[in-house]
């Protein structure tokens, strides 16, 4: 009971706060309070909507004013030209802004290069272009739009109260959406995209679709907020709508509060709005702005991750509640089977060109169910490229690849991952802002079949134990050593329950004892029924582990057969050590 009460308390506070704020305009306070709190809600909604794309997924946008402005002008035009009731224009504003988000995203998200500052600049540019078009067309015409004749919906007795209520409802809805996203599959995918988009895709996250969804949500909410704000400001001009302060303020608010946390932007927005107001009402508006600037600099320098994450870390340090991690249900693991006759992987005439460089030219390779195939060859022979092509990281230049009889050559990486292909990276690439447990849970969620969250967590814990990482569940990957990070890679790959596991130099950089450990682990993985293709330079491991060895040289399959025979083949020796040693 006590535990329930503790969990119910925040919920109760939230419900009471919502009720209190909803009833505020009826309290008979001066209209000033409606207006002030409306502005707080306005900035909370705007900053939170920005964070859904830019904070969660890390696509830093400076173009939020564009979607906000589209919303404002949609409502302004619909109400003044066509006399549409205000409440009907808000969904239209949201829809149009979201549509713009989807169209821009559909173009921009196809280009891998356009991340970071370039995405920020591109979105900023889009804002200026949209602003100029609105200014020069009859939508605005340079004169601005007066909303004074537009009837404000009679939600409450006073017009300011009604606008307040609309702003409040939007704010609560935005926070609910942000919370939902942060705790959903979409949110997990967005966080993964934030940390490492390529890895997210290879773990089964449909990155393109998720980014579009986040962009649409973010833009749509901004559009709705703009629609309501059009009523609040009453007179809409291009200069006032598309000004730089909107994108910069939402960025600052989110960053100060913590852009990766669903509630961070709300904290930052409240803080800055109150701060700005406090100084501006003090009569020294300019001094106030300067002081706000100073506070911003200090908070970014000392709290680079934002207030909410800093506060969470502080609480965690003060009350180190030892969380016990134990799987409640042992996952059902298939028993070991002998190597089957069925081909799990069929590679036929695969070629890959990078510009003029022929990395793979006509590789054929069959891998049977339950088999371990070692992939060896000199540096530059195309081993990692083959792994990258099979896992869908690079598109094929020619040939076909089938997994379990289904063609995967033209699929994107996340679809291939969903069909049971998992991979590890030579240099471990964990999601850096997620704990060990979250890393494995994300891989299990997007790689495996849809299962309840509880089952996924249990399975993740099982694989963490299996790879010897128990007790490190709550650590960030940065706290692990190379050996452990390599095993985290394995745990992530295993959690997806792959049919086919592609290992890229799991042993490189490990000391002899760790290598023995890893070899045992790979055997244990095969014993569970997985088929493994592994790239390795360490010949001892290749000979000990593989059923068959495939030798690549200059992008071609050079030799294929039982490990000891292949490694004794004079031709194979010659490509490794030169002709003199081949005799």
């Amino acid at each position, binding site marked *: 009971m006590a535990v329930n009460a503790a969990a119910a308390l925040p919920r109760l506070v939230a419900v009471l706060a919502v009720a209190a704020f909803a009833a505020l305009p009826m309290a008979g306070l001066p209209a000033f309070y409606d207006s002030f709190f409306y502005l707080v809600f306005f900035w909370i909604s705007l900053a939170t909507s920005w964070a859904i794309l830019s904070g969660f997924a890390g696509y*830093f946008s400076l173009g939020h004013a564009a979607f906000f402005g589209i919303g404002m002008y949609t409502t302004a035009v619909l109400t003044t030209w066509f006399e549409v009731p205000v409440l009907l224009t808000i969904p239209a504003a949201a829809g149009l802004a979201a549509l713009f988000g989807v169209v821009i995203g559909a*173009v*921009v998200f196809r*280009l891998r*290069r*356009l991340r*970071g*500052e*370039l995405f920020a*600049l*591109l979105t*900023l*540019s*889009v804002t*200026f*272009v949209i*602003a*100029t*078009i609105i*200014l*020069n067309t009859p939508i605005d015409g*340079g004169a601005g739009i007066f909303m004074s004749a537009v009837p404000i919906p009679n939600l409450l007795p006073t017009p300011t109260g009604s606008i307040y209520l609309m702003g409040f409802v939007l704010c609560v809805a935005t926070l609910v959406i942000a919370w939902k996203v942060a705790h959903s599959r979409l949110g997990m995918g967005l966080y993964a995209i934030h940390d490492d988009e390529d890895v997210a895709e290879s773990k089964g996250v449909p990155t393109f679709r998720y980014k579009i969804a986040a962009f649409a949500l973010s833009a749509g909410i901004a559009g709705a907020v703009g629609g309501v704000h059009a009523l609040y400001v009453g007179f809409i001009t291009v200069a006032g709508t598309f000004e*730089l302060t909107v994108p*910069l303020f939402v*960025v*600052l608010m989110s*960053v100060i509060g913590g852009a990766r946390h669903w509630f961070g932007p709300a904290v930052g927005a409240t803080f800055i709005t109150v701060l700005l107001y406090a100084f501006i009402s003090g009569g020294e508006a*300019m*001094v106030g*702005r*300067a002081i*706000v*600037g*100073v506070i*911003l*600099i200090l908070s*970014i*320098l000392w709290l*680079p991750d934002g207030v909410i994450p800093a506060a969470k870390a502080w609480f965690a340090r003060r009350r180190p509640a030892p969380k016990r991690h134990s799987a409640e249900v042992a996952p059902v693991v298939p028993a070991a089977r002998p190597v089957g006759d069925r081909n799990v992987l069929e590679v036929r005439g695969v070629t890959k060109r990078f510009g003029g460089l022929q990395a793979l030219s006509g590789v054929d390779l069959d891998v049977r169910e339950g088999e371990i195939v070692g992939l060896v060859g000199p540096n530059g022979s195309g081993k990692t490229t083959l792994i990258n092509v099979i896992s869908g990281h690079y598109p094929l230049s020619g040939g076909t690849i089938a997994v379990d009889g289904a063609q995967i050559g033209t699929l994107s990486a996340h679809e291939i991952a969903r069909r049971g292909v998992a991979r590890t990276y030579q240099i471990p690439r964990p999601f850096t802002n997620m704990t060990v447990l979250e890393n494995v849970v994300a891989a299990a969620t997007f790689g495996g079949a849809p299962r309840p969250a509880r089952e996924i967590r249990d399975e993740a814990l099982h694989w963490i134990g299996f790879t010897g990482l128990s007790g490190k569940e709550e650590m960030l990957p940065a706290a692990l050593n190379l050996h452990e990070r390599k095993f985290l890679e394995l745990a992530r790959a295993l959690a997806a329950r792959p049919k086919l596991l592609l290992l890229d130099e799991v042993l490189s950089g490990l000391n002899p004892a760790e290598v023995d450990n890893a070899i045992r682990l790979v055997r244990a993985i095969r014993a569970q029924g997985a088929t493994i293709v592994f790239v390795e330079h360490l010949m001892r491991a290749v000979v000990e582990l593989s059923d068959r060895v495939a030798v690549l040289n200059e992008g071609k399959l050079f030799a294929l057969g039982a490990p000891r025979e292949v490694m004794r083949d004079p031709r194979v020796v010659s490509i490794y050590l030169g002709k003199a040693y081949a005799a």
Partner: protein
Amino acid sequence: MPSATLLGQALISGVLAGGMYGLLAMGLSLSWGLLRLVNLSHFALAFLSAYIVYELGTKYGVAPWWSAAMVVPLMFAVGASQYWLFDRFRVNELASLLITFSFAVIVEAGIQIYWTADYRRFETHYATESIKAGPFFIPVLDLTMCIVASVLAWGTWMWLRKTYVGKGLRAAAEDADIAAAYGVDHRKLAYILSGIGAAYAGIAGTFIALIATLAPAQIWAWLGVVFAVVIIGRLGNPMGALLAGMLIGASESLAMAVLSPAWAPVVSFSVLIVILLWDPEWL
């Protein structure tokens, strides 16, 4: 369609006005490209310099070149101390953007408190002088500015290309740790570069004082265009920044002449969007 003379004149004024974009873009491009710091306060520093030149000129009758001789070293010091802050707190690209934005807000507030929000104009007799070349007029000030910008761009470019300091900076921009292992004192070079970037803001500010009308909010007016110029000219390349500035200036000016002045902003940003999406090899 306007006459050929008008178009020619628009082209000339556009290229010359673009020199200002280039001049502003150079400092920004250097710190972004070589120090991985996006310095939004660059514009604020340029306007602060412009106001100081204006103040010295109108109140004390100091000639602009003497004012520049004072302002430029001052800005160098400001830029170097900014780098101290970034280095001390290991500021990344994103945080640098936010911090320098805040810094620009502070400078803007300071300017507004001291000089008020009124429009200011530094009247000089050479502001209106121009050379007549055939049917075209070439304003002397704009021409001087473009010559100064070209000399600076070329000099900086050669400095980065040919000297040890420049090569060290470019190496450190690629990978600071590896460069340090080869004996490049990244910090020292970064202080110099950050100072030079800000000093360019001082030079740009001197010309802003002579050519433009000053108001605190003007700090933000060129932000978008100049960022577009920085990207088009390629990060860290001063010659590219100048040429991109002139290209954008010319296309804006032509758009104004052919369409209407209000369409000008679309030009630079459309060029930027097209170039980002097109992703040519030289970028």
